């Protein structure tokens, strides 16, 4: 197990390095950040001074070398706009996004798993047709449009929930989160549901496919021949088997929830990472964009590793390479 993890960490470092190279060269092709930083009517000397201050007058490979040596020391550069370390800005915003993504994941599982099992057990029922129709909508309707509709219905017309923002937060067990206040929860419901909709549809489809496959297996027939109740068969024989692929996919999907919460965060003005990076792209705030992209890559690498480890725990047949012989 340890050898397996070590090898994966080494691979991750290589991937991160290659990604940094790609991200850095791509971003140098897009626009001139100095245009955004100074008043267009400034004197040429002034513009040159700003360019020198940010080190943008040097060739790209020098800039990259500076970035790389800084990154190895844990410094991803300062934001052009805020004048503060990019990493610190991200760390500040991360809890809001993590909270949003986690809530969305929990909603997706608690709603999607039972509906998917129901649909898988009754492939021809009316309930199944409604669930599967709904999941097609969930997958095909754009998130931003649904988000706007939700705001119009639940906030503007019905007035039940706040339109945007994160609301009050409270500290509990050393974690600051809006999950611990009523106002915070109210603010969270709409964006979390919006972010979860696509994943609910995905979980339903995965669960249904898994359920149909597992229910046709001989061990389910043998379990029925033992006289087990349907409840016991679902809990002890169906669920552990369908959870293996679902957890694999959801582990990776958790990364996309965090990485692509950008749309939802923009619509609901949720002060998370997504909003930070959208603003940074608009303002050509290179250090933030680079730091964000590297963060997302690192996130996926870690999630992949965690999923592999969980997989080995869930499925006794899987033995990670490098363990034993």
């Amino acid at each position, binding site marked *: 197990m340890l050898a397996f993890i070590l090898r994966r960490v080494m691979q991750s470092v290589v991937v991160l390095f290659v990604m940094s190279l790609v991200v850095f060269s791509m971003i140098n092709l897009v626009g001139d950040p100095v245009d955004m930083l100074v008043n267009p009517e400034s004197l040429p000397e002034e513009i040159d001074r700003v360019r020198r201050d940010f080190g943008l007058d040097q060739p790209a490979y020098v800039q990259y070398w500076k970035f790389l040596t800084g990154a190895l020391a844990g410094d991803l550069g300062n934001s052009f706009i805020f004048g503060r370390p990019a990493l610190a800005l991200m760390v500040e915003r991360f809890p809001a996004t993590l909270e949003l993504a986690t809530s969305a994941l929990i909603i997706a599982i608690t709603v999607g798993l039972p509906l998917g099992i129901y649909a898988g057990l009754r492939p021809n029922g009316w309930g199944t047709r409604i669930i599967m129709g709904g999941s097609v909508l969930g997958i095909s309707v754009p998130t931003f449009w649904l988000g706007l509709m939700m705001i119009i219905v639940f906030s503007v017309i019905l007035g039940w929930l706040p339109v945007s923002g994160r609301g009050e937060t409270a500290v509990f067990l050393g974690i600051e989160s809006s999950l611990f206040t009523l106002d915070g929860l109210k603010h969270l419901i709409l964006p979390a549901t919006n972010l979860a909709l696509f994943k609910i549809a995905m979980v339903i489809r995965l669960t249904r496919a898994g359920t149909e496959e597992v229910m046709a297996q001989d061990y389910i027939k043998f379990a029925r*021949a033992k006289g087990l109740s349907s409840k016991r068969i679902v809990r002890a*024989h169906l669920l*552990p088997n369908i959870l293996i692929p679902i957890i694999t996919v959801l582990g990776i999907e958790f990364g996309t929830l965090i990485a692509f919460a950008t749309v939802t965060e923009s619509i609901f003005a949720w002060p998370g990472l997504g909003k930070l990076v959208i603003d940074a792209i608009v303002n050509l705030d290179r250090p933030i964009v680079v730091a964000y992209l590297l963060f997302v890559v690192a996130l996926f690498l870690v999630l992949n590793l965690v999923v592999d480890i969980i997989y080995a725990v869930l499925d006794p047949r899987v033995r990670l390479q490098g363990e034993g012989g």
Partner: protein
Amino acid sequence: MNQLKLLSIQGLRTEFPTPDGPLAAVNGVDLEVTRGDVLGIVGESGSGKTVLGLSIMGLVDRPGRVTAGRIAFGGTEITNYSEAQWQGLRGNRIAMIFQDPTTSLNPVQRIGVQMIEAIQAHRDVSTDAARQIVREAMVRVGINSPDERLEAYPHQFSGGMRQRVVIATALLNEPDLIIADEPTTALDVTVQAQILRDMRRLCRDTGMALIWVSHDLGVVAQIAHRVAVMYAGRIVEQGATEVMLKSPSHPYTAGLMASMPANAPRGQRLVSIPGGLPQLSNLPKGCSFAPRCAHATTACDVLPELSPTSPDHAVRCVSPLQERS
């Protein structure tokens, strides 16, 4: 005499709907099994022998269902049992063993869990007490060091060991009847011989009845007191094993015996029955075997009844072989 009748089936018909109309996989079967009896059911793939076993267990997968006839078990009619009543019967009074031991056990649950649940589904006993019953059942089928085995997963067992686990599971609640659906087909010959010997001993020791479903007349001859030969959903010949094997009356049974490698003279090609099973959707008007039968005449256009030729022997043929010889 009557209380010895454990299982009594009359006119059983199990149909599967298709776009071209219903297919009768089991087509008017009458059977009787007494306590301590070992009945072999022989037939090719598709002859309906497996569906017959599943019908007795109430395990026919929808949309298939029993459409006619009655099944009485221990003097009680069970044909129209509710799912809850079936659950009380299955694995408790009637147990079933399936063909492929490699797929009959859930890969992600420990052996112990899968065996203990079979006891607790029917009896209100503590897990410790159930574990003791499981240990005894494992020893009975020849599994050594049961305590270690209980903690193992199915993939850590060989095929023969897995089938022993399945058999031990079927024995847990001391059923009156075990239906074994080709339990040794997937195993190699030496393991098959061991399991046959063990099953014979178990039947003798416990007095339980056994229905042994197989395509292999040779295997059935080793274990069964009585044999029923199925063809295209019907029983075509039935009788005491020694009587039937000595002088088969139905041309199909005779053909099966002639095609057994052990009965073939050395150095000659193996005999085979010309043709294949008729389509269930397109059965011949009279005897289903007539198109493949060397003795067929116009009299075969009317379906003959299963009629006795001697006290312990019945055949469904207009001109049984015995009379001719």
